[in-house]
């Protein structure tokens, strides 16, 4: 009977195509909007992932990576004295302004790495070596958005706080939330690039000794120093949570997805309902011949879920192709479609189709099969 149900549906080309096109569009919007949101959220944590240290230490009230709450230099020594620590180094991380040769200013994300170990350095260099940072005035440019600083070209120069910076290498770097170019240099040079402040150290990077977990070390640091200490993952979620709580992004995307759900219900509900109405006599005849209520409901649900499955394939495939063609999330348009997003989108579309098919068949279920004998 399920096979017949599908033949009944697919034989009605116009309604079938209306359903598939409508639900594919719904699926496309779900995945595309969801991936855009996930992409934006993922970009918040890109600077954290770029540094990649297992434990981050900061002011206890830190809310986001975008905040600057400098610590006294003595805190570095305090952290180093915590049991279970392998190493701890300073990190300068702040948005600063660069003055270009044409007189324009551009914000950049300045990474000041430990003078000796260069811990937090970019993992993959495209041009040059990280050790080139030991040369005077040297900086390494992140590849993403580097065109804002005259392009990723070794030898280019610009000014930061009236001090010369010379590009000695180009690193592979992901785009962050606000799209600022990354500039890497040593810790001391980073401080010299910024106006003097009483406290300059905003993060301490640390690693646990062998046999100690990052979670355990972060907990020990918090207890021993009263500072904030986070694992890499905690640090990412701290920043993401802050953005979710303090920006309109989640509400805007939630409204878009809710509208998408409503449109999906309307398209699927109305079309399946019209299909059931059109076939009411035939379905009543099936009922008269002894088809049970459950079988009729299953036939309708089979039709709905099959259309949903096909539409999800088309819609999500189109959304992923769109994401790929627009730079795969590394370009200006953010796009990140983790399996959880695909699973939620699929589940939502199936719920739409399931509810719509039950809505469509309810009239037939209530119908007395005697109508088949009426002229």
């Amino acid at each position, binding site marked *: 009977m399920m096979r017949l149900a599908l033949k009944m549906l697919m034989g009605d080309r116009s309604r079938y195509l209306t359903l598939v096109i409508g639900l594919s569009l719904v699926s496309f919007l779900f995945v595309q909007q969801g991936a855009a949101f996930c992409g934006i959220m993922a970009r918040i944590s890109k600077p954290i992932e770029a540094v990649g240290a297992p434990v981050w230490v900061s002011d206890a009230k830190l809310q986001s990576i975008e905040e600057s709450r400098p610590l006294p230099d003595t805190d570095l020594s305090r952290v180093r004295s915590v049991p279970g620590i392998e190493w701890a180094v300073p990190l300068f991380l702040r948005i600063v302004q660069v003055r270009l040769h044409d007189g324009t200013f551009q914000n950049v994300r300045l990474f000041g790495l430990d003078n000796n170990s260069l811990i937090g350095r970019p993992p993959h260099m495209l041009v040059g070596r990280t050790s080139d940072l030991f040369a005077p005035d040297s900086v390494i440019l992140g590849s993403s958005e580097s065109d804002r600083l005259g392009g990723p070209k070794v030898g280019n120069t610009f000014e930061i706080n009236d001090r010369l910076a010379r590009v000695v290498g180009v690193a592979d770097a992901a785009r962050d939330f606000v799209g600022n170019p990354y500039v890497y240099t040593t810790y001391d040079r980073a401080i010299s690039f910024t106006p003097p402040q009483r406290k300059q150290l905003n993060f301490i990077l640390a690693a646990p000794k062998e046999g100690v977990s990052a979670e355990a070390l972060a907990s020990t640091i918090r207890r021993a120093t009263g500072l904030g200490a986070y694992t890499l993952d905690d640090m990412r979620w701290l920043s993401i949570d802050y953005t979710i709580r303090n920006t309109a992004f989640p509400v805007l995307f939630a409204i878009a997805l809710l509208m998408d759900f409503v449109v999906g219900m309307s398209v699927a509900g109305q079309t399946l309902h019209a299909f059931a109405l059109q076939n009411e006599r035939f379905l009543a005849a099936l009922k008269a011949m*002894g088809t049970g209520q459950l079988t009729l409901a299953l036939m309708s649900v089979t039709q709905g879920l099959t259309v949903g499955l096909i539409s999800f394939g088309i819609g999500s495939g189109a959304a992923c192709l769109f994401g790929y063609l627009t730079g795969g999330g590394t370009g200006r348009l953010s796009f990140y479609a983790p399996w959880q997003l695909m699973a939620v989108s699929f589940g939502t579309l199936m719920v739409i189709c399931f509810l719509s098919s039950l809505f469509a068949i309810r009239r037939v279920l209530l119908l007395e099969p005697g109508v088949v004998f009426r002229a």
Partner: protein
Amino acid sequence: MRYGGFYFSNQASYFAPSGRTGDLISLRKVTKSFGVGEARLQVLRGVDLDIQTGEILLLVGPSGCGKTTLLSVVAGVLDSSEGEIEVFGQRVDRMSRSEKANFRRAVIGFAFQQFNLVPTLTAAENAAVPLLIRKLPYAKALERAREYLALLGLEDRTEFQPTQLSGGQQQRIAIARALIAEPRFLVCDEPTAALDSEAGHQVMELLHQVGRKENRAVLIVTHDNRILSYGDRIAHMIDGKIVAINNNHESRKES
């Protein structure tokens, strides 16, 4: 029955001998009314009727006299208001909706006046529907449907959709669908209305063969005078009551 053991293994009670050799179907004081209050319309007014083994009963009467309502009530697709309806020893009027659905699936074959063929299915698929409802595998059901369609002269139309066929051909598909599961009780609403004389007689011959089999019965509502000779008895209905029943056998003997 060729497929009896397979289809009806869990519905044996419908096919167990009823212990009666005479009436297979009996109606006593059956009434049916629609609406309430002043809008109430009584369509059946205490109908008494018996249909016997191996009998074809034709139900005739003017439009609006309640023929189709009576047919619907006997077949269990419409609830009666009052009265007793017994079909093969089962009290249809006491059955729940799901019991009626099971009963119809196991016992009754339907031929509708308006065919009710699904336009997006082929002739063979339409004819195979009762077997698919009984969960027979798709390929076997279609094979059987093609055999039945061939019996009705449609062997070269099995893969056509109803909209590609004439009214007469569509009616023959509907008849094939009614007969395919070899039901014990066949209810037909104007089965020859869309057929020319030759096709009409062909269909009636087939129904006649089915109705003649032991422990089977056929109830046909018709306005078609051409087929009256195929009925064993003819029940005349006026204003919701059976007013006369002619016995064709006796008429034939007398003549």
